[in-house]
């Protein structure tokens, strides 16, 4: 074929161990026969922390990811609570941790929406890439761009007030926390909370209006039926910090019904596939073919029954109404769900700042020492699993982590496959439309390749097109 001689030269990328790569295999008629989203994984962190004392782990795991260190910090701390026998934290400790976590969710969701995905929504998937970026947003929607930065900054200030420093943050310790929230810190945060609520409502409106107005176009975009999994509070409420494992299928039928997450190995396992370093988790009872599931904002709104803050609950009801109360399998609905969670996080921060328990002085509890523990929470991108074993010398001897992006591995592959089938259209080249659509589909999941690869750095995306014989016929990379 004529394009078989075309060669794309890729500039080397330095200091990046992890990156995403899409390969699309065509048959002799240039129809898609296979597509895969690979992540080059650098695993070694679990070994790195072996031999370290367990009380260092909540600090050390923050090194996993510069994007969501708080999620790893808190998941590890929850596991270490069990190690030290702290079955019930003090109200001050639990609420400080929750405040930290909502700050993390707020800043993470704000950054993703305003600076990474809003260009797709504001300008359309087919807009030139030169315009479809944050610089374009600044030019046409400067207020929105500023709000994104300031929401993110506020979330970081919440983290700083609860966790201490940005690096080596030590807010959560085994059995509790090491500081409460001072009156001065509380008042500083309260001063701006009204503004943050207003901007959160505005962001939700952008996401909702876009989805509803373009429902015909987005309903099928990179979409597919799937299972959904998350933690859910015992009464069915959305809870980002703690709950039971709960999973539903594409129709809303319950697969896992509020099971204890410390028994996760009874329900979840990971498949290794020869073409990818990243594992593929699935629900054991359904097997690898049918048991894979989505995590993150869309999954959480599919698994929970309600949200315990009034404005997010009202938004949740509108969200569920779009699919008649049934499971929402629309990939692009992740953005709307994410902004409902953004508003929920802001409401939760406001609620917590008004709670005098944050000024309590009973910070730590301990109990009977244990040698194995599991800690889970709902990180911004989805369910995060931390599992440790500790010997009688207090050294970590085993660690196993399943990060959100790993759980979304198969769903992202499904999304890419759908987009490839819909947009290759018999062409043996990587068109701008294909590039844009693959990028948009993956971005809906807000993948954190740093987490998945356990490496810090930028996350370039590479797309390869292979002919029927496996020969490379086109290749592009976005830094």
């Amino acid at each position, binding site marked *: 074929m004529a394009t078989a001689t075309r060669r794309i030269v890729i500039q080397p990328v330095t200091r990046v161990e992890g990156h995403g790569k899409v390969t699309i295999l065509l048959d002799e008629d240039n129809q898609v026969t296979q597509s895969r989203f690979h992540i080059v994984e650098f695993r070694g962190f679990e070994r790195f922390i072996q031999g370290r004392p367990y009380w260092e782990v909540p600090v050390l795991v923050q*090194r996993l990811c510069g994007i969501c260190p708080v999620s790893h910090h808190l998941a590890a701390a929850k596991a270490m609570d069990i190690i030290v026998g702290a079955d019930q934290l003090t109200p001050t400790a639990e609420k400080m941790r929750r405040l930290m976590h909502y700050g993390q969710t707020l800043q993470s969701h704000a950054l993703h929406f305003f600076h990474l995905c809003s260009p797709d929504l504001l300008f359309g998937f087919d807009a030139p890439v030169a315009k479809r970026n944050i610089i374009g947003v600044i030019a046409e929607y400067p207020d929105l761009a500023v709000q994104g930065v300031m929401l993110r900054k506020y979330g970081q200030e919440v983290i700083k007030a609860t966790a201490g420093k*940005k690096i080596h943050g030590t807010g959560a310790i085994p059995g509790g926390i090491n500081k409460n929230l001072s009156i001065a810190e509380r008042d500083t945060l309260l001063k701006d909370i009204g503004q943050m609520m207003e901007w959160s409502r505005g962001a939700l409106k952008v996401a909702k209006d876009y989805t509803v107005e373009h429902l015909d176009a987005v309903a099928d975009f990179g979409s597919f039926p799937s299972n959904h999994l998350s933690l859910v509070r015992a009464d069915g409420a959305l809870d980002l910090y703690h709950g039971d494992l709960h999973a539903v299928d594409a129709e809303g039928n319950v697969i896992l019904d509020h099971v204890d997450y410390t028994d996760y190995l009874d329900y979840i396992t990971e498949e290794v596939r020869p073409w990818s370093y990243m594992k593929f988790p699935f629900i054991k009872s359904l097997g690898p073919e049918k048991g894979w599931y989505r995590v993150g904002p869309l999954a959480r709104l599919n698994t929970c029954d309600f949200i315990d803050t009034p404005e997010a609950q009202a938004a949740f009801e509108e969200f569920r109404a779009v699919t008649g109360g049934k499971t929402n399998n629309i990939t692009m609905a992740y953005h709307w769900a994410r902004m409902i969670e953004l508003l929920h996080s802001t409401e939760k921060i406001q609620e917590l700042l008004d709670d005098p328990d944050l000024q309590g002085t009973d910070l730590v509890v301990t109990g009977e020492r244990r040698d194995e523990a599991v800690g889970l929470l709902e990180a911004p991108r989805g369910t995060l699993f931390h599992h440790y074993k500790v010997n009688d010398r207090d050294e970590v001897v085993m660690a196993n982590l399943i990060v959100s992006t790993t759980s979304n591995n198969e769903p992202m592959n499904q999304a890419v496959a759908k987009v490839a089938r819909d947009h290759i259209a018999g062409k043996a080249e990587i068109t701008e439309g294909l590039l844009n659509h693959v990028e948009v589909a993956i971005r809906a999941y807000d993948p954190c390749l740093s987490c998945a690869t356990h490496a810090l750095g930028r996350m370039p995306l590479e797309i390869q097109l292979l002919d029927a014989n496996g020969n490379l016929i086109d290749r592009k990379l976005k830094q």
Partner: protein
Amino acid sequence: MTPEAPGVLILGYGNPGRLDDGLGPALAEAIQARSLPGVTVEADYQLTVEDAAELARCGTVIFADADAAGPEPFSMTRLEPSSRPLSFSTHSVEPADVLTLAVELFGAEPEAWVLGIRGYEFDAFGERLSERARTNLDAAVQYLVAAMSAGKFQEVRPTGGINRPDPTGEEDPWQTDSA
């Protein structure tokens, strides 16, 4: 630091858990320990968009990072805003991106510099600097303290190092070079 008294902001970034990638935070720690007047120091795993808001409140900003391929012991390069879009899906941004956001969103006009400290070991987990990286760090700290004392910064570009892409990267985000 206040808008009435713009000073120097030092942003040291990198992962202290990845060996020499911790050079930026190590420099921040060393400068912080000196408690220099008019100098604000921040350390983080990576740069983020909200750093742009901080730039709006300073007269000079220095982005301090490990450099895997630059000259020894360090380089000091003047930075200009970039027109390059932020990258595909990362939540990490480059110094030029932060500067651009500061200029475009907040009307900031800081004098911006990139301090690249040469490191050598990045491909493992570990909380230590290599011996050579520590030597380079000491030289960078010595230079920076003297420059801040004099109130003047200038380009430092020792010979050596490996050619690498322009950090301000004005290239097409989708790199396609058909042959």
